[in-house]
């Protein structure tokens, strides 16, 4: 069991968050879908990108050192004009600077997505069991209602589907009470991909896809934000 306290302190110091664009690239390389997005480091390129992908767009900081983007005022939604994009860009950069970010001008411009339900899909490395995958309903619901399901990685498609049925909100998500059913199949696929990533990449300490937006059945699911904490390997 060793000298617990000392080891944990050492392990903590080896953790580091990666930037938003790196986190997205890691997830995308492993099959996770995102809306069209691009990193913009000046207002002109933000406007250019917005024009290319089509309004409305979302701007959010890509800085690795901003943990709570919304709380820090580093997310702006539903931007439809050049003026709005420029204003949002400078607000986000200003707020990120004030929050002490070393890369305040790294901003992601992303196509706005509308779905019918939001989820969190995440990874965590347990000291005892290794990588663990979680799926929960919407950012607030997962924390307040504790409506989430866990499994050790990797999971099969069947197990991923079982995780979704474990959710208390499942009857609603599956189209009960005159609701439209979410694309549970696409969500299960995303769970499987993330769980494989957890099993393969020992240096991933934590990963959050939050929120994941599910469209109605047959129309897929996309992650609109990613956060990754890496841990340096013992041999590094």
């Amino acid at each position, binding site marked *: 069991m060793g000298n617990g306290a000392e080891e944990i302190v050492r392990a903590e110091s080896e953790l580091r*968050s990666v930037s938003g664009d790196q986190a997205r690239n890691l997830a995308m390389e492993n099959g996770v879908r995102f809306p069209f997005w691009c990193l913009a480091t000046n207002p002109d390129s933000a406007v250019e990108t917005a024009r290319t992908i089509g309004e409305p767009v979302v701007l959010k900081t890509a800085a690795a050192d901003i943990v709570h983007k919304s709380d820090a005022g580093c997310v702006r939604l539903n931007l439809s004009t050049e003026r709005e994009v420029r204003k949002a860009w400078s607000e986000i950069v200003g707020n990120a600077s004030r929050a002490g970010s070393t890369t305040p001008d790294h901003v992601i411009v992303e196509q706005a997505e509308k779905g019918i339900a939001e989820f969190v899909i*995440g990874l965590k490395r347990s000291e*005892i069991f290794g990588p*663990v995958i979680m799926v*929960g309903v919407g950012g607030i619901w997962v924390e307040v209602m504790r409506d989430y399901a*866990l499994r050790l990685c990797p999971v099969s498609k069947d197990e991923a589907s079982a995780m979704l049925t474990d959710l208390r909100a499942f009857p609603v998500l599956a189209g009960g009470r005159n609701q439209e059913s979410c694309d549970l199949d696409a969500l299960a696929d995303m769970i499987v991909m993330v769980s494989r990533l957890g099993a393969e990449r020992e240096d991933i300490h*934590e990963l959050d896809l*939050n929120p994941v937006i599910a469209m109605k059945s047959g129309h897929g699911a996309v992650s609109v934000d990613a956060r990754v904490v890496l841990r340096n390997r013992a041999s590094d």
Partner: protein
Amino acid sequence: MQCWYGRADYIAFDSPDTENRMSAREELNPDIERLVSATREVLVPDDHDSTPHVLDHVFDARRIAVVGASDTPGKWSNDLFRLLSESFKGDLIPVNTRTDHVERKQAYSSISSIPLEVDLVLVVVPRDSVVNVVRECVDNRIPVVHVLSSGFGEVGGHGSELQRLLVDTVAGSGTALIGPNSLGIHCARTGMTFTAGCRLEAGPLTFVSQSGGLCYDVLVRGQARGLKFGKVISVGNCADLDWPDYVRYFSADPDTEALALYIESVSDGLHLYQELREAAKRKPVFVLKGGKTRCGSESVASHTGRMAGEYDIWQAMIRQAGCREVLSIDDLLIAMEATPYAETVPAGHQAGHRFGTVLIGTGGGATVLLTDECEEAGVSLAPISEETRNVFIRNVPDAETLGGVDNPVEIGVDRLFADPALLARLTEVSCRDANVDAVIIHLNLTAIANLADPLDALQRMCDHLRQIERNGRNVSVVLRNGDTADTSDHLRRHTWNLLHGQAGLSVFNRFDEALSLIRHIETCVRDNESKEDS
């Protein structure tokens, strides 16, 4: 054949009348017999792991040496040796440097001076001498050394250092180590035990515990419920042999038909998960996790990190492995009692069918409250068939005035005993009903005590109950007021022995225990269905 949860041995009664009626004590209740054989067919795996396992030396031990066995009465190492010398069926050898004999058995001064082959060495010497004894075991190629002495990793500091020394000593050798800090082993087959307070009885249940004290709880309370634990092992600190080894062994062990584990911690969680997953394919595995702190994660950077505490992960792991989590010792015992019924309950459970229970009892208010309790516990009352309702109406003609003839069904105590076959008829027709999966009977034991001859009345009722065909359903009897002081202990035990011992029904003092049993059966049925699906 061993009985999953046959009758507890009868307690001797002073009444000669009672004793006469108990003469059929050797015959096993036919329903239980059927139930058990059905269970076996499903549970016994096709391919037993036939590789000899080091733990065979423990559970089939023919010769045991006890290092530190004392001849001084009053010492624990003397109590233990005396206990073993009375119960162990094989050869027991004391090892003691200071005396020639312990309990009239010739003592040896060291392991190497024993001229015979030893399967297992028990170590009960003071902590600081343990490492030397273990080294001697390694040198003498003893298959297993079981360290009961405490004061190691569990106390930290120097104890942890000594534990590391123990691990180093056996590492790479042919000697495996159980413990340290272990209470011992209870094994009916060899007669090993750690307590004089429990019977050594063969049985298909195994309990593996990281707490020594809980071994007593499970044995004593389990035996009181008629559950037969053939093997119980206190694994202590798991310094060498660890959870994956124990799970693997009992998964392959043909004597073990159901496995219960009390786990506090494990060093290789993933390995444990893999072994649990394999074991759960072969037999029911129940896990009671000690230390349920939901302590948040070390990092707060992500939702996942914040949400998934270690206990949450344990819970998920237990489920994912196909095992069942239980929440207390009582829950564990009830779950084990419930499990065979999940195999025998009729297969009419097409998906979506709600598991239905019939509630039969005496006492109007009690029936109302218990119906509410069913509702709150998520146990649904079965919509009984027309045939069942007709039998109810024929048999309980005054029931209309007592609130209707349906489920729950209500009987007056006087009527119940005026017609000793009444309860059996109602129960039997319920067990024939395709909508019914279980029956709960509740009786007010205080009202029964008021009868002129309660023992005789109960006996006659039970004579009918024991003959009914239950078609694989569980029938539970709740003895209301059965645990209160004014109900004589004698009556309570007698009733228990009749209903459980003779009639093979599950008997509880509290209603919530019966509901818990039914929920366990239902969960188990569902789990089995989903296993078949996948």
